[in-house]
């Protein structure tokens, strides 16, 4: 008698296999944790991979200070529930210079996230960092390896990536090099949502629709999450029933008008909707293949 494993069971088994390989072969791994839905799935998979032990690595949140309040609220709880250490890193230079998404555009992402991540990895000496990137997110990610090698300066050299055959990953590297590992590479947005639903994983309430104060900027619906949001003359936040498909820095993350208050409703809307996930993120709109460029600079 054979049993047909479901696609989610197979994706889960693959992610767990990858995480265990890393823990067995890396010297000092860390899991990048952004509090979003993909991070929630990653954390859940890590708990499953090492149960009954807690995952044998810490969580690292590269904080920009501009995340939604609701994300900060879930962050500590999630780490505590998993029995894991949570490391929070903020780029001191960005704090000092007051870098923010309103005045500094793409410099904000570069300093807080790209530079912040490099600083944190160097500071703690992590040699492998788990990330929650998926191949379906963007065309240029379709060819990304599961084990992605970085030079000592965290550069991504597309010519120097290794072929990945079967489920054999080569984690050997020189002392100064590091690896980003993406265990959920083969998951789609729908897989993520279905898995969250099936496994009853706690996610930030912002993914569900609720009345929230919003303004419209450059065709994007932005939530006025705190008093730092600089309203223009005569601009008044409007209460709209909105939710978020992805979560980042609140001034850079577009909301969608929605009535979906439960997970099935969110999935329903997602399936009936006709725009792709990353449309709500300003980061991708900067320039063509902007993701690719950010990757070479060490964004993730």
């Amino acid at each position, binding site marked *: 008698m054979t049993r047909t494993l479901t696609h989610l069971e197979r994706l889960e088994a693959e992610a767990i296999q990858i995480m265990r*390989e890393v823990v067995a072969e890396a010297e000092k791994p860390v899991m990048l944790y952004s509090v979003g839905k993909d991070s929630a799935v990653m954390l859940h998979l890590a708990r499953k*991979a090492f149960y009954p032990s807690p995952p044998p690595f810490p969580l690292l949140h590269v904080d920009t200070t501009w995340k939604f309040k609701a994300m900060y609220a879930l962050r500590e709880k999630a780490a505590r529930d998993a029995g894991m250490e949570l490391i929070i890193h903020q780029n001191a230079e960005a704090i000092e210079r007051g870098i923010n998404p309103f005045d500094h555009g793409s410099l904000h992402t570069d300093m807080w996230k790209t530079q912040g991540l490099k600083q944190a990895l160097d500071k703690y000496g992590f040699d492998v960092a788990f990330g929650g990137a998926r191949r379906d997110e963007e065309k240029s990610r379709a060819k990304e390896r599961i084990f992605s090698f970085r030079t000592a300066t965290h550069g991504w050299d597309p010519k120097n990536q290794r072929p990945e055959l*079967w489920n054999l990953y080569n984690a050997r590297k020189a002392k100064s090099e590091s690896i980003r590992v993406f265990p959920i590479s083969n998951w789609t947005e729908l897989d993520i949502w279905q898995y969250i639903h099936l496994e009853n994983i706690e996610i930030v309430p912002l993914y569900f629709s609720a009345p929230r104060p919003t303004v419209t900027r450059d065709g994007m619906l932005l939530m006025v999450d705190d008093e730092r949001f600089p309203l223009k003359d005569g601009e008044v936040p409007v209460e709209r029933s909105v939710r978020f498909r992805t979560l980042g820095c609140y001034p850079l993350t577009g909301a969608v008008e929605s009535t979906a208050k439960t997970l099935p409703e969110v999935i329903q809307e997602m*399936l009936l909707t006709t725009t792709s996930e990353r449309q709500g993120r300003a980061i991708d709109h900067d320039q063509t293949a902007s993701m690719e460029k950010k990757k070479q600079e060490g964004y993730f």
Partner: protein
Amino acid sequence: MTASPDSPAIYKTDDLIASDIDAYLDVHQHKSLLRFITCGSVDDGKSTLIGRLLYDSKMIFEDQLATLESDSKRMGTQGQEIDFALLVDGLAAEREQGITIDVAYRFFATEKRKFIVADCPGHEQYTRNMVTGASTADLAVILIDARKGVLVQTRRHSYLAKLLGIRNIVLAVNKMDLIDYDQAKYEAIVTEYSQFAASIGINEFTPMPISGFKGDNITDTSVNTPWYTGMPLMAHLETVVLDNEADQTKPLRMAVQWVNRPNLDFRGFCGQIATGTVHPGDAIRVLPSGKTSTISKIVTMDGELEEAVAGQSVTLCFEDEIDCSRGDVIVAADNPPEVSDQFESTIVWMADDALIPGRAYWLKLGTQMVSATVQAPKYTVNVNSMEHMAAKTLELNAIGVAEISTDKPIVFAPYAENHALGGFILIDKISNATVAAGMLHFSLRRAQNVHWQATDVSREAHAMLKNQKPKILWFTGLSGSGKSTIANEVEKALHLMNRHTFLLDGDNVRHGLNKDLGFTETDRIENIRRVGEVAKLMADAGLIVLTAFISPFRAERDMVRAMLPEGEFVEIFVDTPLEIAEARDVKGLYKKARAGQLKNFTGIDSPYEPPENPDIRVNTVEMSPAEAAEHIVRQLMPLK
């Protein structure tokens, strides 16, 4: 194969999403997963086919579609119609920059299955790319342009699919619209292909006439090919038997990735089951040690399982405290795989730097990582003509058959039987690059099917009872140097000291165990190997073993040293110059050798390689046999 021309296009699920999302989710949570690879060049319409599959399964969002429509008008090749190829050809810019693209993965889903498509663009790098994509595929779609028929690349794709063990081959005869859906032309292509396929061992494949551009026989059976009685492509992809299910029917194999030990009361072995099924109570064996136990429980965060099957990542606990760690393989106790250190393999070279035969590379197979050397290939295969060609090395994208040996035995199965225990990668020890992928075919050792029988009374226990440290006193030196005489004196001395000893004498062993061996270089090596193995067994039994053999080659003495724990092999060089030994000529052998009556005589027409750093050296010109023995015994103290 049954035709289903009338079945509705069930993967169009919009109605259910809108009307009953819970029912929809329930259906989709029970989908299975098929990974496949599409093989063909740009001209075969591969990108168009993949784009069509994504489009027809509603994986294209409106914003992507809008971009696609404008791109199609701007740079498409299909006039005002949508150019599906643009959906997946997003890598043009990278190509211009000379960036190597090996495999791009695409995703789509229907109600029955989720699909992961490995798409391998590129011509020069094709072998490396396709082998990578094929390694995880259950099925290969081999695309043929109906106007061109079976081409060189069709052969290449088919050979590589077969090499990587893909059991399901779809021959998609594409662009049928451009040959007016001509049945005769289609059948001629299928006939030609089946002849070629049979010649490389592909006995079964599923042909279908399609048009990726027009959508014929993709999701629905086409009205343009009424003579075609098979399934449309999507229906075939949805129903083909998955490798994972076939794997479940094989004996249990699970490579241990990590030992989970949160506290003293829990010890679990983490891994992904490669083949078979496992239940609490099942008898298992841990290889290579051979120790056996019983599964006590299968632990997951969702509770203990009554059964786990191939493909699942689990944590297994045993009834007994037996040694088991990363690199070991947990297998069915009554049906273990082989353990060996020498294999015939097919190797696909993937690096710019060619293979250096004899150099040590890291070999990773499952969770086993060992040092391995590859011999010069027996031949390489021309992937276009299937011809075997002589070669001294393997260059980038070369495929060759070669012997490979590992520095310690590994648990393996022929690739054809078990991909997880037969597929390996080679890693350069300096650059750490993955330089090759390979498939083991069979062991070159005769003892391949003999398993190490674990015993409860260990070698330590044997030695403890005898109140001594086991040793092998390895006397080496020319014929007539006095090895046997001195060894005999040493044994007498040790015996008087209540030591448990045994003397293995070269001449005596050649009367029995090794009477089939002569004195050629090969036979001499085998002679020493056997003596080494026998001596090791005696040392395992706790004895102090004395061996008196010429053992002329350093490599073989080092081989025996490597078989034993550090410090147990004591190399004793009985140093007698050739002219002295020849002058003694106790057995009259030198005289015979000089007269040409004895061939391959050490020191005369066969070399002796003296030890460079012997543990003990005795000079028989200056010392009598008794003095030499006394010197040796002194050097050996203490014996406990």
